[in-house]
């Protein structure tokens, strides 16, 4: 028998043997408060707000770190439990700035929600002053150590999931802080700006740099022609900003919402995702012909680029020189689109909506200005777009559906799956296979590279030749693959790396509440988007075909090199 009998608030229930008290209680529909606990992380048990009474145990126990035992009698609703939780919350608040009113997390802060739920009315002690300076050193993230409750969730994701180890607990006693060493700023250390720390932070202690005002300003400026592009991952997550369940496909509503915000053209990063496949696919073929610089490593994830530039600079020659779809879009908006629409590039303002905080840094790279103007002028994360739509008073659920504008809004199903781990690989294989063999694929799905497994491998037959490919997501897994490549133990031809777990749908700019379970649902939705598309291969995207015919001429041609490709540099262990 895998189940055992326990009692929750007097009621007999049967629970999986290995379950924690927290999960056992949750299964009964009782929501226990938690702060340091995160479903995808190891138990830290440092906040104590999840306490319950267990019969026969003198002290209250932390439910997140206690396993159930046969016959255990758990009480979650006694006055003692309630009062203890309230006291713990009061203690946290006594050492916390009382700034909820002006805090970026006002509305979705886990601490504030608990305070409201438990009726915290009085806070003993002095109101803590803002003694620590905020870290605004990067274009991606803002750290406000004054609001940190030392739950350790950021440190865990930074050290384990990402294995870069930037944020960690320092000092002891009352001086404990979670920060980079020597209290340095993020720009001074080897942070990759993935924002996974911000995604798991329960409070307003680390968050995306908010660029909504910049975009409002551009929208209000009559001299600016403001165009927007949206990443594949946003269409399957933005609905969560409005309380809808994860995995909703809301492409049509998203387009309507952006149009209502006042964007002059609503375009799609999927268009340049298809273009990326054309360029990167040909790059792969070229390298396979010469046998040089293999495996080809993908380049569309800016957190990953920040990583390899700092941690494995020796492998930079392997990285595809393709700019990411976001940057390709910007470069084309200010050249191809500017020419065809007769609008001066200096008056075009490109906004992108991304699941990612590292995209803000990428857009700000000085080399990303191949039209003579900055490719992308402002990057909003999914969370920031949610904020703008709420400010505009939009009832997202009630919006009608509409279509992206042509031509930079036309895309294929292959582009949609860019947002999921394995998607770039699958999209590339669909195109490379057909280009090389001249035959059409009878089955488009490459299921070996799909799913949440950390490292996926597959071999594909291309014109009688077997090639090996690999896919990794999350930098801890990327590191493992890099070690294999560095030691010469890998014989891959093509490797897809995504910085964030699950790929872009799990990015650091996505709606709060992103867990691996939520990631899996968004991934499923993206494959559904792909299936619903009339065109499912990048090279069959008619708008991309027009672009080559009328403007670029050929993949890897001169104009492509000027606008769509970039170079990398060894940064040492610091992002600046």
């Amino acid at each position: 028998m895998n189940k055992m009998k326990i009692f929750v608030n007097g009621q007999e229930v049967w629970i999986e043997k290995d379950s924690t008290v927290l999960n056992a209680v949750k299964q009964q529909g009782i929501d226990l408060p938690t702060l340091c606990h995160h479903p995808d992380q190891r138990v830290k048990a440092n906040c104590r707000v999840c306490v319950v009474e267990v019969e026969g145990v003198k002290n209250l126990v932390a439910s997140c770190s206690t396993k159930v035992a046969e016959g255990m009698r758990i009480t979650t609703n006694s006055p003692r439990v309630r009062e203890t939780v309230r006291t713990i919350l009061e203690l946290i608040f006594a050492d916390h700035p009382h700034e909820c009113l002006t805090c970026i997390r006002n509305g979705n802060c886990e601490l504030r929600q608990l305070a409201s739920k438990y009726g915290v009315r009085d806070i003993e002690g002095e109101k803590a002053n803002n003694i620590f300076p905020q870290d605004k050193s990067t274009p991606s993230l803002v750290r406000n150590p004054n609001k940190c409750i030392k739950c350790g969730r950021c440190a865990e994701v930074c050290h384990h999931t990402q294995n870069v180890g930037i944020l960690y607990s320092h000092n002891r006693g009352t001086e404990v802080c979670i920060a980079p060493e020597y209290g340095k700023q993020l720009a001074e250390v080897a942070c990759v700006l993935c924002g996974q720390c911000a995604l798991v932070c329960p409070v307003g202690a680390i968050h995306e740099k908010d660029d909504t005002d910049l975009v409002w300003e551009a929208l209000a400026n009559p001299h600016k022609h403001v165009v927007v592009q949206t990443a594949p991952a946003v269409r399957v997550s933005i609905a969560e900003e409005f309380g809808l369940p994860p995995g909703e496909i809301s492409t049509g509503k998203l387009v309507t919402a952006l149009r209502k915000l006042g964007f002059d053209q609503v375009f799609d990063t999927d268009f340049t995702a298809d273009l990326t496949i054309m360029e990167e696919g040909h790059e792969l073929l070229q390298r396979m012909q010469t046998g040089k610089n293999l495996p080809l490593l993908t380049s569309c994830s800016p957190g990953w680029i920040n990583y390899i530039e700092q941690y494995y600079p020796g492998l930079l020659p392997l990285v595809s020189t393709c700019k990411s779809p976001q940057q390709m879009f910007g470069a084309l908006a200010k050249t191809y689109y500017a020419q065809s629409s007769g609008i001066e590039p200096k008056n075009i303002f490109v906004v992108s909506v991304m699941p990612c905080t590292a995209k803000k840094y990428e857009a700000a790279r000085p080399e990303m200005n191949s039209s003579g103007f900055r490719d992308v002028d402002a990057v909003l994360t999914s969370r920031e777009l949610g904020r703008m739509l709420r400010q505009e008073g939009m009832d997202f659920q009630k919006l009608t559906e509409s279509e992206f504008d042509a031509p930079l809004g036309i895309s294929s199903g292959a582009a949609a799956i860019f947002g999921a781990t394995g998607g770039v690989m699958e999209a590339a294989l669909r195109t490379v296979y057909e280009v090389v063999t001249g035959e059409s694929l009878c089955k488009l799905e490459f299921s070996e590279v799909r799913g949440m497994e950390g490292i996926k491998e597959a071999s594909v037959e291309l014109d009688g030749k077997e090639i090996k490919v690999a896919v990794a997501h999350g930098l801890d897994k990327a590191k493992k693959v890099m070690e294999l490549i560095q030691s010469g133990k890998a014989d891959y031809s093509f490797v897809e790396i995504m910085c964030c777990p699950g790929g872009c749908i799990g990015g650091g700019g996505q709606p709060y509440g992103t867990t691996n379970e939520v990631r899996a649902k968004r991934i499923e939705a993206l494959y559904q988007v792909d299936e619903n598309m009339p065109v499912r291969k990048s090279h069959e995207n008619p708008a991309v075909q027009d672009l080559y015919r009328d403007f670029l001429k050929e993949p890897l041609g001169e104009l492509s090199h000027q606008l769509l490709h970039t170079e990398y540099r060894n940064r040492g262990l610091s992002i600046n």
Partner: protein
Amino acid sequence: MMSSTIVQDIIHQHGGDKALLLQVLLAVQDADPQKYLSEESVNEIARILEIPRSRVYSTASFYSEISLQPRGIYLIRVCTNAPCENAGKALVLQAIEKELGIGAGQTTSDGIFTVECVNCLGACYMSPAIKVNDVIYGDLTPEKAVKIIAELRKEYQDGQNTSGSCI
């Protein structure tokens, strides 16, 4: 500045074992002429042991035995454990702080003295006790402590003068 080879040697002596991080940190601190763990040393240890810098720093900043600030030529460790406490440590510490014009955990601006509070020096039989570099002084009174400082100052100045006269 500590040379990287010294750090490498120390790590080598500890078998390159990540689990011995604290011991490595203490040994590197000891080998440093300024008796502290410099940022260069932290980075070097992180690089060789393949531990993120933040984690090396975390351990270093957790243990009171490790100083992240350069320490004076004379490191005065004042015992704050119960036996010394009961024997009048508070007055001794006060006298030292007053004489040097710094608080515990600080270094004089001329870089000659550092005062730190520590746990038992193993000299409880002559409490209250302090330790200056490797020498223990016991059965202290505030007056005795001030006298010791005066002697150390003289010792330092004599050293300076002799080295000066060599030129």
